[in-house]
């Protein structure tokens, strides 16, 4: 490998120290907003009142149970556990008391056992710093739903043997992918998609801090497109503001563009084809949509919204179309060819609808 690419500056030299300081300052200024506005304390977590309230109570009791956080992406799971750990241990202790393992780490059975055991066993020296620092350590298993069932069962034993001095926090999107014996050992906390008004508050706060000009409709469409995923909303907001530059106002179209939403007139065109049974027309329309790079799964979900609203189809017809959509969605997620699947969908629906 290129030695220069992986060049490591020698530690200690005065020049390198200065460079490092400068680079830290630059890094802070360029920090992506999703990190810059990551909640620092439990009080900053918005919209998850219930989870936060219960967690705060348990923290006071000095006896934390094992935890299981679940919910869709970008709703504050990782942020909450990090904030909780910071609240418990304070910034100095956190490094020695918290172990974070996520899906990027090797998490086979043996590795888990080894790492967790070593960490759990290294004794906790009492009362460093503050007195009310609790005696246990926390092991965070983020993205736990990507662990194999075997690794999860192995964890059961480990959890029990180490439970005197360690607490586990499992985090996942799909609680059903955590095996029952593991889930039943934990206090469960559900993280809901963020409510609109909370997303709005958070986004407006960022816009004020960062001096972003954005129309109220664009904020609304940002919230709608992100479907309660605040990370997505913040990500799109920052990208939009970078694309537009400082002076221009961010409008609805930019947001739609960034989110990869298929433009409404393209969807109109496809929907109009449903009422023709003309293969040539359908195939032309599909070829163009595919060449323009629109993703078939996005098209499918946007057409589905139309399907629910349309008044030209009977409910039987709608049910039949829904079945076609199901087939096509399955095929797409198996990696089938997008163009063929769209053709399939369009011709079948046109037979039902015409």
């Amino acid at each position: 490998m290129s030695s220069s690419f992986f060049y490591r500056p020698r530690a200690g030299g005065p020049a390198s120290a200065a460079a490092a300081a400068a680079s830290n300052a630059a890094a802070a200024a360029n920090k992506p907003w999703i990190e810059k506005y990551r909640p620092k304390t439990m009080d900053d977590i918005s919209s998850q009142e219930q989870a936060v309230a219960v967690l705060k109570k348990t923290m006071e009791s000095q006896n934390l149970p094992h935890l299981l956080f679940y919910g869709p992406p970008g709703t504050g799971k990782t942020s909450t556990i990090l904030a909780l750990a910071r609240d418990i241990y304070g910034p100095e202790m956190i490094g020695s008391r918290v172990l974070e393992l996520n899906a990027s780490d090797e998490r086979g059975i043996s590795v888990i056992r080894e790492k967790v055991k070593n960490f759990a066993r290294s004794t906790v020296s009492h009362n460093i710093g503050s007195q009310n620092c609790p005696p246990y350590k926390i092991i965070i298993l983020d993205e736990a739903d990507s662990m194999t069932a075997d690794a999860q069962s192995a964890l059961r034993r480990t959890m029990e043997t180490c439970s005197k001095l360690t607490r586990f926090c499992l985090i996942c999107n799909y609680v059903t992918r955590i095996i029952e014996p593991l889930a039943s050992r934990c206090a469960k906390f559900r993280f809901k998609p963020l409510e609109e008004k909370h997303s709005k508050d958070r986004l407006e706060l960022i816009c004020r801090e960062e001096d972003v000009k954005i129309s109220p409709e664009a904020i609304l469409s940002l919230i709608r497109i992100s479907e309660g995923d605040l990370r997505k909303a913040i990500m799109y907001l920052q990208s939009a503001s970078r694309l537009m530059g400082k002076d221009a106002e961010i409008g609805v179209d930019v947001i739609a563009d960034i989110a990869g939403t298929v433009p409404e007139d393209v969807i109109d065109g496809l929907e109009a084809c449903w009422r023709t049974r003309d293969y040539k027309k359908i195939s032309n329309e599909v070829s163009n949509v595919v060449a323009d790079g629109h993703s078939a799964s996005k098209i499918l979900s946007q057409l589905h919204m139309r399907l629910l609203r349309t008044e030209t189809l009977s409910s039987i017809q709608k049910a039949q179309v829904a079945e076609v959509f199901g087939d096509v969605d399955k095929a797409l997620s198996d990696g089938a060819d997008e163009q063929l699947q769209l053709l399939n969908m369009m011709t079948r629906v046109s037979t039902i609808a015409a």
Partner: protein
Amino acid sequence: MALWVDKHRPNNLDKLDYHADLSAHLKKLCASGDFPHMLVFGPPGSGKKTRVVAILRELFGAGSEKIKIDQRIFETPSKRKLELNIVSSNYHLEVNPSDVGNYDRVVIQDLLKEVAQTQQVDASAQKRFKVVVIHEADLLTRDAQAGLRRTMEKYMGNLRIIMCCNTTSKIIGPIQSRCLLVRVGAPTVPEICKVLQKVVKKEHCGPLPESLALRLAEDSGRNLRRAILMLETAKVQCHPFKDNQEIPRMDWEDFVRQVMHQILKAQNPESLQHVRGMLYELLNHCIDAATILKTLAKELIERVESNELKMRFAQEAAFYEHRLRMGQKAIFHLEAFVAKIMSVYKRHQMSMDH
């Protein structure tokens, strides 16, 4: 000697010939201090790679073009050795992790951690981060994608990821919400014509008749790489260009056309057996099975007159292409497709006779 497609690849954002809005946006994005992770998607030959190379140049200057290729060895937890070619400059690194199949997570994590731990060589460089380009990101396993989630957040300080893929349908939601989505649609036919004229001018081999340019562009299916390759072949076949000269076709495409004729000529076990032989021949020449199926379906659909049959053929093609992806042995599914088409066609003929 370099192929025209490589020789005339525009190397900076200003020289890109189409999607001027997108280029302007990207330029602003590069100029701002911050830069997000990116997911660049679009159909084959639409100019994704070209655009990414131009972005790198905009970010890092000409240094990003001084690239070299190294072979790296990675070790899986089970001590298996994997070899992978990696393209790198001082500022970025490119990988195609689908080359290592199911071990892609190990490779990606090793690489990203390594890159994240190193600093930019050049303390005066405008950007504090390095870029890792992941090609064919839609072929990443779920496991590898899950591994990227937290990594993308943790290493954001000095690492950015640019993923290239044909479709976002296979990229998991949590990754999409961590990236700026950049859609690179295929150029339109007139845009392709313009690029072809430009290439001819640079090669001093004009004039290129408008009508020939148009036919090349249309025949390419809006795939610019294909159009330029065909142009170069056309020049070898007949120069100076003539407006009625034949469009160069691949040998295997002609062969697929013969398969189509055979299917429509006779629908019986002997004919099926004959076709099987032809399919084997295609597979033996390393033509991708899905491509064979798609091309064959296109030929069949163009050939038959009946609108009903066209629709039906398209649906069968979608069904068997999906099977092909899921299954193990290509020939089974190709043959099943042909048998199905024969039966549908024969039944149709019989109903016409009555």
